[in-house]
């Protein structure tokens, strides 16, 4: 065999290896991409809703704050406003969104965002004394952590 043919053969083999490598890479990329898209399609569908739901939670926060200031008011208007609040909660509940209880629980950064450390006053250290903004779950997912004060 001619030496030039050998080199040509080697060159082609090398080229084939590179091309094959690129082919496999593209194939792998695509396969991984496809799998991830499948996995994430649920998440993506939710992410569209997420933004609007998060801003609705701010409206709910408004109700929570308003109620704190008017606990003893039992007028018909007050009852009506409470009914509106319940209705909004029910709308979200139908989508699988619900507030979770934080007060008295051990502080957990997966669920809580600490905004202050306060005197224990009878609460065990490291537990949530109050939530200044409620936390919400969406199914298994923490949609928004609660904003809490923690005994320390």
């Amino acid at each position, binding site marked *: 065999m001619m030496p030039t043919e050998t080199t040509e053969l080697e060159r082609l083999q090398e080229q084939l290896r590179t091309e094959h490598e690129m082919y496999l890479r593209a194939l792998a*990329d695509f396969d991984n*991409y496809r799998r991830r898209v499948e996995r994430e399609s649920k998440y993506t569908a939710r992410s569209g809703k997420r933004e609007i739901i998060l801003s609705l939670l701010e409206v709910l926060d408004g109700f929570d*704050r308003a109620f*704190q200031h008017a606990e003893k008011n039992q007028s018909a208007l007050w009852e009506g406003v409470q009914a509106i609040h319940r209705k909004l909660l029910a709308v979200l509940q139908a989508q699988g969104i619900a507030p979770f209880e934080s007060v008295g629980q051990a*502080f957990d*950064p997966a669920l809580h965002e600490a*905004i*202050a*450390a306060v005197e224990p006053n009878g609460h065990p250290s490291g537990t949530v004394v109050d939530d200044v903004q409620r936390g919400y779950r969406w199914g298994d997912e923490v949609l928004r952590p609660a904003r809490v004060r923690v005994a320390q």
Partner: protein
Amino acid sequence: MAKAIGIDLGTTNSVVAVMEGGKPTVIINSEGSRLTPSVVGFTNAGERLVGQLAKRQAVLNPENTIYSAKRFIGRRFPEVQSEIKNVPYKVVAGPNDAVRFLISGKQYSPEEISSMILRRLADDATKYLGEKVTDVVITVPAYFNDAQRQATKDAGKIAGLNVLRIINEPTAAALAYGLDKKTNETILVFDLGGGTFDVSILDVGDGVFEVHATAGDTHLGGDDFDKRLVDWIAEEFMRDQGIDLRKDRQSLQRLTEAAEKAKIELSSSLETTISLPFVTADASGPKHLEMKLTRAKFDQLTADLVERCVGPVKQALADAKIAEKDLDEVILVGGATRIPAVQALVRRLTGGKEPNQSVNPDEVVAIGAAIQAGVLAGEVKGVVLLDVTPLSLGLETLGGVMTKLIERNTTIPARKSETFSTADDNQTAVDVHVLQGERELARDNRTLGHFRLEGIRPALRGKPQIEVTFDIDANGILTVTAKDQDTGKEQKITVSGSTQLSKDEIDRMVKDAQAHSDEDKRRKEEVEARNSADSVAYQVERQISELGDRVPVNEKARAEQLIGEIRELVKNNSTDVARLRQLGSDLQQVAHALSSAAYSQASQTASGPSGNGRATDDVIDAEFKQTR
């Protein structure tokens, strides 16, 4: 074939990105966010938290929560005295004056803290990609000295990563804009992040970047703008209500968030409302905050912060011995460069040059790092070769409409087939007119070629099935094949250079299509209205001839009258869409009456066509026109 990722290891936040299919993608972390706070917390329970979770517990655990580790990495203890004053955690001198963080009696180096952040980002990437990630490119500020670079590299090693390269943040930003392909250009990178401001001047030539000058302010960023706004709102509120919102942690937090939101809104609109109902209360009851803020007011409040950017820019230009007119490119990096006043300042300082800002300024550095990582892992070379078709490809169908088979910006090689049919009874040949362009009507697009497929067996219109395949290879060579499914007869044409239009030409054609889109849509509607009315007329005509004398005389006369009117309108290329549709639907009504009358007369012999009379379901609703 492991993936290599790019990491923008920031002072406040970090971002990780990867090349996928030749395109950089920012990786979403396990909390669903594109940004990961550069924070590490050590809890009393001995747990180590990184990122968002660490940040959430920082207030409870300030002494054991390390943020801004980047401000300490690779530096000597005596050099960081002013930084120590700004942080609540303990910083001590280690061996050889090295900086150490003291956490629950244990010393940690800044490298170790950074390694925990890097590890977390790499883990998130592994989870996202579904394959193990070990190769990384990490970015550092251009002004980092050798010790700081080495320490950053060590942080990668401690995290168990293989650091392919440490690159400069401004270089990464330039890579993200593809500026490495330029020859002999001078680039100014203006990076105003959350808490730091950097200006760099780079030169690029033969794919190599050289940093000529850097300047900046290590304590100036978007957070300062927020704080200005918080102070203003709080003071206005105090004047009104006599309560200082900054004194109450909860009110302050709500205020800070509202201020940041207002700042963001003012980047796209001229006025915004800050609304915080029940923000606080006193003996007289609850208090609400409702305030309008204009962009002009915001600019006035932050004018001195914007002005603080001037010095470093001028200094960098002077150090690089470059006049503003010599700058070829300006790049904006960092979220705060979205502020209109900052952009205006950059334009003013760079001779009115329009800055590059199409890539998200929070992510541009990580994206550039990912591109570099892709190149070093030998990936970019292979995949970037994939091109796209700059314009749509298709063929002319009934009524002079262009039916697109391959949409513009489809990645090539690509292949697409569709089945078409004939437009007239006993049509024995079809003309395939191959087109390129974005306009709706064939005549407004560019003709790539014509060919004719003959020898189709005579049949009713819509019956023959002609499969047309567009196949465009990686070199942009297009082959169009038409095949008669009945006889197996086939004709093809090959067009080279369908992707070789100049950029100007492509832009012109795309713009043209946009400019004419309303008009084109209307014209296409007219063609479709004519086609569909004509198609109904054809079916009813056939129905009448098949049913013969079973057709009630009145219905027949009415149908013929309608058919006549439609034919007249079609012949004259009528543009009266409403009239065509009305006639079509009237005729359809008559056809129903006609067939039910006929069927009730003699159901046993009925064999008339039903539905729209087209051959099969997968034959699309567009036919070749009759060849002349």
